[in-house]
């Protein structure tokens, strides 16, 4: 039985800001959860079935079958090179940009196979946003950074842009810091602010899923805390899949955790259960720090 926060079907447009602010603080490891949640996931938003990925002749992902629960935070953990970022990039087809990548198997987003070559990648990426490890603000103003996704989608009306930019920046907890200098270059902000601009930019196009590829690894501890708080606030409206190196972070922010090792999925389950009672020896070895 799934007992974690059950959220009513979310409207596709985000809730008013006030509501977001009132959301409970992020999950903390150790809060008891029903272990039976791992048995099956109802209403998964993304289903990966027997996914294999090859870089040329190397098999980087081996037969991954994994369901991502809707509107929850799922963490992908594992040692370096285990394929967690590669797997993440499969979910919005960012691997297309890399030469010589080939996949077999199926990834379904709401029942539609997104590995299909004829799929409109641009449409997919609007539904599945991404935040990268290194903050990548565009060399534009803060406003233009956030409005970028809308502009390329053809939104021209200033009133609409203004509204969405403000809403996204508020949701990314950045509005108060930058509201007076929206038209300054985004490059002048700090590293933590950069990453929040990137999150605001991803939110602005109103995706269903936000992929985060080690979003805090280039940041200082204070900025990390802010981003983690932010993830906590975004939970419930967006499905968040986060790759992280940091197991404390995974424990702090995620509802579910998947442990990947050498390209294979070893274990998947509710975060508190996986960290307290890992069922596989590799998982236990990894989370207790015997390798990694």
């Amino acid at each position: 039985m799934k007992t974690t926060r059950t959220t009513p079907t979310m409207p596709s447009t985000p809730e008013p800001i006030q509501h977001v602010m009132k959301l409970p603080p992020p999950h903390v490891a150790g809060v008891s959860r029903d272990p039976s949640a791992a048995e099956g996931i109802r209403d998964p938003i993304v289903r990966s079935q027997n996914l294999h990925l090859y870089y040329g002749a190397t098999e980087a992902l081996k037969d991954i079958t994994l369901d991502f629960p809707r509107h929850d935070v799922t963490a992908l953990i594992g040692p370096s090179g285990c394929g967690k970022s590669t797997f993440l990039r499969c979910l919005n087809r960012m691997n297309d940009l890399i030469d010589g990548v080939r996949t077999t198997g199926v990834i379904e987003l709401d029942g539609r196979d997104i590995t299909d070559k004829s799929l409109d990648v641009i449409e997919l990426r609007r539904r599945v946003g991404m935040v990268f490890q290194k903050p990548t603000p565009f060399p534009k103003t803060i406003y233009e950074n956030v409005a970028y996704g809308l502009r390329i989608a053809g939104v021209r009306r200033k009133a609409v842009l203004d509204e969405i930019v403000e809403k996204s920046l508020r949701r990314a907890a950045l509005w108060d810091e930058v509201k007076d200098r929206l038209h300054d270059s985004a490059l002048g902000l700090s590293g933590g602010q950069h990453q929040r601009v990137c999150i605001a930019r991803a939110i602005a196009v109103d995706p269903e899923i936000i992929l985060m590829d080690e979003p805090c690894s280039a940041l200082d501890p204070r900025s990390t805390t802010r981003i983690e708080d932010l993830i906590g606030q975004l939970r419930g409206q967006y499905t968040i899949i986060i790759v992280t190196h940091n197991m404390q972070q995974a424990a702090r922010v995620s509802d579910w955790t998947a442990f990947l090792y050498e390209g294979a999925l070893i274990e998947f389950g509710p975060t508190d259960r996986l960290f307290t009672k890992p069922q596989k020896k590799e998982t236990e070895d990894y989370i207790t720090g015997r390798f990694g």
Partner: protein
Amino acid sequence: MDKAIIRRVQRRDRIARWTITLGGVAIIVSVIAILVLIVSVTLPLFRPPRDEIVSKTALPAAFSDKEVLALGIDRVELGDRAARDSLTGYVVTQDGRFTFLDFSSRHTPSAVGQVANLSYSTRSVPGALKKTLRFVENHAGTRYSLLWSDGSASLVDAVMKPRFDESGKRSVEHELRTLAAFPPEKGPLPLQALLRAAEGGAVTCVTLLPGNRLSVVRRVSSENLLGEEETIEHRRTIEEGIPGPIRALALDGTGKTLYAGTENGCLAIWQFDAKGQIVHHEVVPAFRDKRAVTALAMVFGDVSLAVGDARGEVTVWSEVRRGDSRKLRLLHRLSQGGKGVREILPSCRKKSLLSLDGDGEIRLDYVTSQRNLLRLTGAGPIRTAGYAPRGNAAIGLGGGDELVVWKIDCPHPEVSWATLFGKVHYEGYAEPEFKWQTTGEEPKFSLVPVIFGTLKATVYAMLFAVPLALFGAVYVSYFTSPGWKNTIKPVVEIMAALPSVVIGFLILLWFAPLLGRWIVAVFTAMVTIPFVFFLFLLAWQGVRKLHWAKRVEHGYEFLVLVPVMVAGAGLACAAAGPLERWLFRSYHGMFTEWLFQVTQKPYEQLNSLAVAFGLGFAVIPIIFSISEDSLSNIPYSLTAASQALGASRWQTLWRIILPSASPGIFAAVMIGFGRAVGETMIVFMAAGNAPLLDISPFNGFRTLSANIAVEIPEAPVGGTLYRVLFLCAVILFVMTFLLNTVAEVVRQRLRKRFGQY
């Protein structure tokens, strides 16, 4: 760590720092030194003319009872090592004597009037025994027309021959050479006589007779059938067609054109053929206010006539072609003095004129630039003046029989800002023009055509090179597959290794003739290639869903597009012939014929298009390489971030990549521009080097750099041309310097705006 190691590291750091600093400073210093050097060579062009009185002495006592009719001076600059000049003056007195005076001081004259060694010797004109001189006219340096009291006339040359003795000491030997003598004619005594000896032996003697008549005697020597020398004289008296009482006469160097200036402000011209027949006669009412013409002289080159009038103004007139006829027209007005102009003395080297007015002031003007160079002052009113043939000295006889000698230092009178950058009315031209033409008696130094040529070359080359290089760079860095990129980029960079002389050679001998033959095809291709391209894109929509087409669309587009382009070019070649015949059917089916009929200018094979291709070929690798680097330096994360937001490749390119790479792309274009401005060999070989001022792509031009290369072998060191060519170098330097500075400033601003990639 071991202290010794730390010390060694520190020492090496220091050495490295010093070496690098030294290298940087040395580069800056040497660039500045080069600039200082070339500027210092050009500076004398703009130095104001200077005069200096080197001698101011009373006329020797021996002259006290004789009337001085004319003066002369000759100055030979012996260079810096001799430290002093040879300065010889002479005085022509009524008794027919030329008295030579040596003004070369053995010591530097410390003060005016102290000439240490004034020696004089006198030469009598041969045959001047009891006769006295009635009239003396000096023209063309040392030649004097003499009219004697018995009515005879002669032409003498005051020759000064330098001699060197065994010790190498220089001395000057004086000699009077009679070039022609005409015996007295029957009838009244003439008032004036003017003689000219042309090259080839013909001598013309014009005398002004009382009653306002002119007598013209033309003596032609030739060998007869027996090999004997035979002299024929053609005589003619002119009584009609003279508009008023004649005040002044001038003869050109051939003796075939006679000018007369009259009391009532008219100029009369007669032209004779070899036998003394009048072939042309024209009267020009020169001055509306009918002021008297008081002095005439031929400006150096024997084409223009200098006219001095009763108001003290000197004007220069020249024949200008108007349709089929040639008319004497006013070209230049020179500086104005007081009262009437008494004498006009031309230089024998340059178009400068020394004029003496009724107030006794000597003025030195340059004709072409209409520039008053000097007013020779400091000696009170002058009665008679002489001007050195080299134009570097003047002599005057002032009140109280004082002889004054001026040194004139004005080596570049023909150059001024107005002549370098403005329109100038040159002899024989219908109107003022920008003209660069350094040969001939009147060098024309307008820099406008060569600066224009430089810009024309650069602009045409950039129009060709910038789109190709930038599109190429964008495609290679952003669209093509990495494997091909690693092949294409080095190949393009090898283009840069091709010496420009090879490119110039190929353009000259191979490409320009080819372009001439296929010029219509080139223009047709501008239509057919986009057309075929468009057709192909339509067809592609049908196959793009196929698997192999998808692969082509990811980095192998050029494999299918290159054949499409070739097909477009082939279509152009095939269509060009019939198209040309049809389009230009009323012009013998030839484009070049049409071009000539429409623009009145022929199609030149070495034209701007050919150069644009060559010069473009030379700058494409630079622009391509630098802009490709800056595009590739845009972090992949930006592309990924943009695409992760659902941007297409084009959107990412336009909105993220190009703005971020803009500082680098701008720098690439500017560096290419700088290279094109300074490029010499390609334009030198392929541009035809005619300094035209014409924007048409079908004719050539001359650039600043090619101008230097073409002319410097012919330019005497220190001469005007030499210095003007250095001025071209300064302009080139300043142009590239400004270009680079502006480029750097803009680049820094772009960088601030679009980040540092």
